[in-house]
């Protein structure tokens, strides 16, 4: 692709500048990303090895912050909260999304009107999503609280977000509400892009609908399912905004996700050292997941 015009003089310098050109193009991006993402990471690592409370960084204390973190109940509680959240929300979104996509793909009247409407929950600010559901499920006057939850006596107490038993499930439900329509549209886009040939062959062979789905559609969609699944997994694990506006981690610590815990450690207890240890820990897990994910997506599935 890179062509070098041969001239008698200055060939070497031209060759050099031609070889440098691609790097010049990426330099501004790389410098910026180092500043806004690598530098903060390194600083977080530095803080995590120090005694840092109330904004004063004092002694170097090796792994004490990590030990404190990993032996604390609040940390494992946050992991449990994130685990429950992700393991219920993501599979449900997947299943409902796939079912919806198959229906859309078979043909629906007014699809061109329906599709943009379904994007709305996903593109909304998460903080507004939280707000919406605060309104819907507000104790006593919320339209769903009064007309459904109270009428059928589903949850005792003032509001579902104050219920130790149901607050987390309510947050899971909201995530499902927000992301299922998107999953549906993404899978639908994937279905539309599938080659038609194998389907004709399967029809000729008299394969059943279920066989076609299991042996043809699923394998053909595998790269897409993998990419979407992992992106969703990572996003769900990071959840902050909706929890922050709806429950702030409560009641007690029943909805305290790792993001919320890190926030509270930093800006409520000003225990910056331990909060940084948590941040670095989560960061490393994410980086490991990203690395594995990227290599599988690239090599095995040819996605991206």
């Amino acid at each position, binding site marked *: 692709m890179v062509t070098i015009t041969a001239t008698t003089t200055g060939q070497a310098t031209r060759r050099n500048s031609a070889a440098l050109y691609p790097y010049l*193009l990426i330099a501004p991006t790389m410098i910026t990303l180092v500043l806004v993402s690598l530098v903060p990471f390194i600083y977080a690592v530095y803080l995590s090895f120090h005694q840092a409370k109330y904004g004063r960084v004092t002694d170097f204390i090796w792994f004490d912050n990590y030990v404190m973190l990993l032996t604390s109940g609040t940390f494992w509680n946050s992991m449990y909260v994130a685990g429950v959240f992700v393991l219920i929300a993501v599979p449900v979104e997947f299943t409902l999304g796939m079912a919806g996509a198959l229906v859309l793909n078979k043909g629906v009247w007014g699809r061109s009107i329906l599709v943009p409407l379904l994007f709305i929950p996903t593109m*909304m600010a998460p*903080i507004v999503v939280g707000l919406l*559901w605060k309104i819907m499920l507000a104790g006593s006057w919320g339209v769903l609280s009064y007309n459904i939850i109270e009428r059928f006596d589903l949850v005792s107490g003032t509001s579902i977000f104050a219920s130790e038993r149901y607050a987390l499930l309510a947050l899971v439900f909201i995530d499902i509400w927000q992301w299922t329509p998107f999953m549906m549209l993404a899978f639908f886009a994937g279905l539309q892009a599938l080659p038609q040939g194998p389907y004709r062959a399967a029809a000729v062979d008299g394969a059943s609908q279920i066989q076609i789905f299991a042996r043809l559609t699923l394998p053909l969609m595998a790269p897409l399912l993998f990419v979407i699944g992992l992106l969703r997994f990572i996003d769900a694990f990071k959840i*902050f905004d909706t929890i922050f506006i709806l429950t702030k981690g409560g009641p007690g610590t029943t909805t305290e996700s790792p993001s919320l815990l890190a926030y509270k450690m930093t800006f409520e207890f000003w225990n910056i050292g331990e909060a940084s240890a948590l941040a670095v820990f989560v960061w490393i897990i994410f980086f490991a997941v990203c690395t594995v994910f990227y290599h599988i997506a690239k090599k095995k599935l040819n996605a*991206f």
Partner: protein
Amino acid sequence: MEQKSSIGLGLRTAAAVICALIVLFPVLWMVAMVFKPADVMFARPTVFFYTPTLANFAYVIEQGFVNNLITSLALGIFSTILVVIIGTPAAYSFARFELKAKEDLFLFILASRMAPPVCLVIPFYLIYAKVGLLDTFVGLSLAYMTFNLSFYVWVLRSFCRDLPVELEEAAILEGWSKAQVFRRIVFPLLRNGIVATSVLCFIFAWNEFLFAFMLGGDSVQPLPVAIPKLITAQGVRWGEVAVVGVVSLIPVLAVVVLLQRHIVRGLTMGAVKG
């Protein structure tokens, strides 16, 4: 056969409409709340019909929310322009050239995108406090780069790869300079991709909460931060909160209508062409 398939179509459509209503009901309810007078807001049983009022708007304007709105718009536009200027050449370069350690650079970009914002906000807060970037326009725009620049480069690269190489090769054989090739061939062909990706960046900036909440302050306070400030233990002016929520939905609605296909492509980091 003909009749059977049209019954199926009808059933599927009915199911789709019901699902769409479930999905949209909370949104529509909030839009209706904007016009709800205070006396029916908390009524039990729920009041579905009432005389609409504009009183909620008046209060919101009185409280200076126009400033929040302007801040949000300016931040979104400024940070997106920065991302486009810095990121477009990189996306092109990644799509076209063989680079040393390309895979590692890529992973670095992906990791920047995936990092949990709460992990970043802690060091950002402390660094900004030292260098005096807290509650500044520039500081917040820079912070938005962590997720938007990496997102932009990654997704625009997938648009770049759709361009035919032959045109560029022909132009170089004609003796065009690289700058000319970029300006006169690549850029025009890439325009749709740039618009789609940068509009998504704008929406991410517009929707962002945590950075704005922690790194902003009284002088730089975009809309999402204004919402939780209205929700206090003393009580909430729900009608006003709904107004702010609905205003923040406006650009989202525009994007949803204009960019449908590209949303899937963007949110799957280019894995689905849409």
